[in-house]
């Protein structure tokens, strides 16, 4: 039997020490009628057979050149990232409850918080949430808690925020009586018109949620949105793509006073795509709101000898102390992914992050240029975009995408399901990994399919 070290001799000696005849006797307290019949599981495999089995499965899924985005992006992950994050000392440690025996994890988390804060331009950050979507849900809950001036728990949600994220938010916050109001985008521009906010009265809105770049890849007029939201007494929650912050203005400096809470999907920072996870959510906020932050927070302190050290702190917010009055029920978060993200951000540095962001943008421009050269393919929106773009498709996207996949191209996602008024349209993205040859192949295939 794998993984159990006991020899027959161990077993005998241990049973004797306990004073029972058999292992069975240790389960004597379990009522007999609860005992299960032998489980019907597939026969066990040794490691070699498992490797073959999973290797075959992985082989079936390989081979797409990825132009798909919609919230997860195919970035290059430097080899050192997972060589380090996969080290047993990080990989097999628990949440760092015993600080003195967990300085490695704790210091990385502190450094992670610092990087996230610096990247977003906010004052404090937590040590991760599950993923970008659930982080947005937590941000909405937090904003409602934090905004004591608001008369109602009403939150405005731009419809340019990822449709899936909006659904997750709704699922997570609905039970707490929060009202979510959707703000539509301006149909030609693909962003939310800041003037829409003038329709609300001061104090009637707890928070506004916007995304930059938004789901369409488009850049929103964040300055005006922030200023108008603040004028209403609303807090601003910004959902951002961390790679874009290599070149885009950080939410902390949007408008006159900046966004109040920033969150996002951390996947682009070193997490493999992995069919959707594990990724991580990050969250930063103004210092004044720190006691409303959900999740773990690490602080720097000193030991008895005055040496620098790190501890979990402000735990009074958390479920294991505050129980039903905690800021969130989150316990296990996505620790290891933040180790990877910290190594990733360190390896890239500010110049590398900017170069990656610029390469994504440049490749996306080439991609859009190439695809819109195909007759009938055109941009849906006029606003500038970062590394993803919504295009009108002359053929049904639900047929186009499998067709492209058969030819090795992951073309993107369709928009019509979530935005019926947009008709047949394709959301497609390019990262720094995409080459001119790949972009050209995509273009040629699209032309072939469209009939040119």
């Amino acid at each position, binding site marked *: 039997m794998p993984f159990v070290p006991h020899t027959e001799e161990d077993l005998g000696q241990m049973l004797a020490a306990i004073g029972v005849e058999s292992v069975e006797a240790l389960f004597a307290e379990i009522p007999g009628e609860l005992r299960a019949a032998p489980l019907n599981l597939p026969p066990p495999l040794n490691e070699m057979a498992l490797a073959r089995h999973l290797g075959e499965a992985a082989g079936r899924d390989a081979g797409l050149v990825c132009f798909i985005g919609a919230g997860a992006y195919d970035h290059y992950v430097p080899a050192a990232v997972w060589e380090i994050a996969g080290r047993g000392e990080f990989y097999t440690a628990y949440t760092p409850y015993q600080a003195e025996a967990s300085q490695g994890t704790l210091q990385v988390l502190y450094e992670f918080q610092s990087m996230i804060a610096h990247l977003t331009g906010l004052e404090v950050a937590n040590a991760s949430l599950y993923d970008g979507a659930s982080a947005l849900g937590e941000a909405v809950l937090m904003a409602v808690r934090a905004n004591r001036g608001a008369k109602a728990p009403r939150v405005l949600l731009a419809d340019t925020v990822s449709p899936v994220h909006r659904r997750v938010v709704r699922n997570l916050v609905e039970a707490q009586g929060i009202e979510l109001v959707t703000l539509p985008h301006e149909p030609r521009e693909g962003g939310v018109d800041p003037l829409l906010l003038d329709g609300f009265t001061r104090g009637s809105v707890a928070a506004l949620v916007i995304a930059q770049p938004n789901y369409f890849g488009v850049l929103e007029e964040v300055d005006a949105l922030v200023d108008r939201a603040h004028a209403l007494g609303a807090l601003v929650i910004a959902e951002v793509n961390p790679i874009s912050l290599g070149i885009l203005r950080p939410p902390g400096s949007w408008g006159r006073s900046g966004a109040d809470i920033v969150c996002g999907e951390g996947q682009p920072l070193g997490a493999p795509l992995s069919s959707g996870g594990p990724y991580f959510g990050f969250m930063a906020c103004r210092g004044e709101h720190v006691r409303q932050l959900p999740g773990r927070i690490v602080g720097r302190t000193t030991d008895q000898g005055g040496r620098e050290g790190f501890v979990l702190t402000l735990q009074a917010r958390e479920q294991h102390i505050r129980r039903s009055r905690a800021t969130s029920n989150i316990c296990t978060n996505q620790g290891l992914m933040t180790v990877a993200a910290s190594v990733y951000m*360190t390896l890239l540095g500010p110049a590398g992050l900017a170069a990656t962001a610029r390469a994504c943008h440049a490749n996306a421009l080439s991609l859009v240029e190439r695809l819109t050269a195909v007759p009938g393919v055109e941009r849906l929106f006029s606003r500038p975009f970062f590394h993803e773009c919504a295009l009108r498709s002359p053929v049904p996207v639900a047929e186009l995408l499998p067709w492209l996949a058969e030819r090795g191209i992951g073309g993107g996602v369709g928009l019509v399901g979530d935005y019926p008024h947009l008709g047949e349209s394709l959301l497609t993205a390019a990262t720094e990994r995409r080459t001119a040859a790949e972009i050209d192949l995509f273009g040629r295939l699209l032309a072939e399919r469209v009939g040119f």
Partner: protein
Amino acid sequence: MVIFEKSSRGRMTGSQQAVVESGRMEIPGRFLRESAPLLPEVSELEAVRHFTRLSQRNFSVDTHFYPLGSCTMKYNPRVCHTLALLPGFSGRHPRAPASHGQGVMGLLFGLQEMLKEITGMAGVSLTPMAGAQGEWAGIAMIRSYHRERGDVARDEILVPNAAHGTNPATAAMCGFSVREIPTDGAGDVDLAALSGAVGPRTAGLMLTNPSTLGVFERRVAEIARIVHAAGGLLYYDGANLNAIAGRVRPGDMGFDAVHVNVHKTFATPHGGGGPGAGPVGVGERLLPYLPIPMVAREEEAGGERFRWLTEEERPRTIGRLSGFVGNVGVLLRAYGYLRMVGATGLLRVADYATLNANYLMARLQGAGFRVAFPERRATHEFIVSVKPEAEAYGVTALHFAKRLLDHGFYAPTIYFPQLVPECLLIEPTETESREDLDRFVAAMVAIREEAKSEPERVKSAPHRTPVGRLDEARAARQPDLVWKGPITSGQGGPVVFGQGPEVSGQGKVNGQPS
């Protein structure tokens, strides 16, 4: 020294700089940042060295016995890590078409089926990203269930007072109020109190069994009857499933919903605090409400075909909990583990986890320590109370915990559950050898001896860790959560790292020598 202090303006890891071939840029200046973010600027060597050395400042299962109660710190098979990172898995976009997902979906389907069998449930969704999100999904389903039946007055969730903090926190996040049920002297739920508490406001009960007191809740069938009779449903917190997997199934105990912590029972790593995964299973009544996505299998001409179930197909679902599918990479690791152990292996997991706990309890008891429930069998974990030692020498559970670090052991969970004073909740897991358990006993005895002879040494522990006892009060009072510059106090020298067990005055300490 944090990475920022090793940073130097303009230093960088050149091999990681993307090349902007076309050089094109069409983002108007007003959207662009004016100054670079304050990220570290170091060489690749400095980065690798910094984080490698940080890793050495951790205790971990791969380096230390880690008997952290309620956390099941067992061995995490390395092969599961390497396989989950196979390019076919790690490179697959979550929204890639089904044609390029049959491999991973087939495995996830297999995991759903295995978890159904193990939990005795009618359906399983893998999407929750940790135990607490599994709990959330379970309670949300219970809420939907009552709601759809028009049973809107049910606004209370019952939780034993020994429960983990996530249980009440989850109930509250789902909009319920929480009512605590006391525990009786033997560690079981107080049935009388439970009977008194249930009623028309009862939406459900959350229960961990074996409980966090390290004992099996013997009257669980009775509890289920009481709650069900009152119209409530039962939620099973699967954090302790390791003790009984393969022997007893939550479904057979009468539970309506359950989560499992794959990062406990199914040997996926804890990663210093995640990622884990908390798949949920439900009985027939809650089946329509399971969160999506889930994988469906269809028979096809050429064989089988897998696909994601969508919201449209499952209109009564509580919906999505994450941006995509949940922690797939973690689930693949759990799949791998389950395929390696199989049904007989799983039984042995529970057997030997229980054997190890009972052996360690017997040995500690034999050495004169007070255990919380001496008349009960330990499950996969048990509680020692050092109240006698605290009273006699002023050496508390915290002091024992910190001093254990000096002996090369991670500390057991302390002060949880809160019902037992000065408690250490000890869970050895099935992957530790008898020798290591014996060494742990020796360390506990040695610490008690020291508590008598040299209590200050114990109280000021740890002494052999990279840093000494940290000032948590200062951390909370003057939060320093983000690096802004060098720490002010100049007294501290460079940090000593990665020390092992100490050679004590009298002779050997049976720590974990290599």
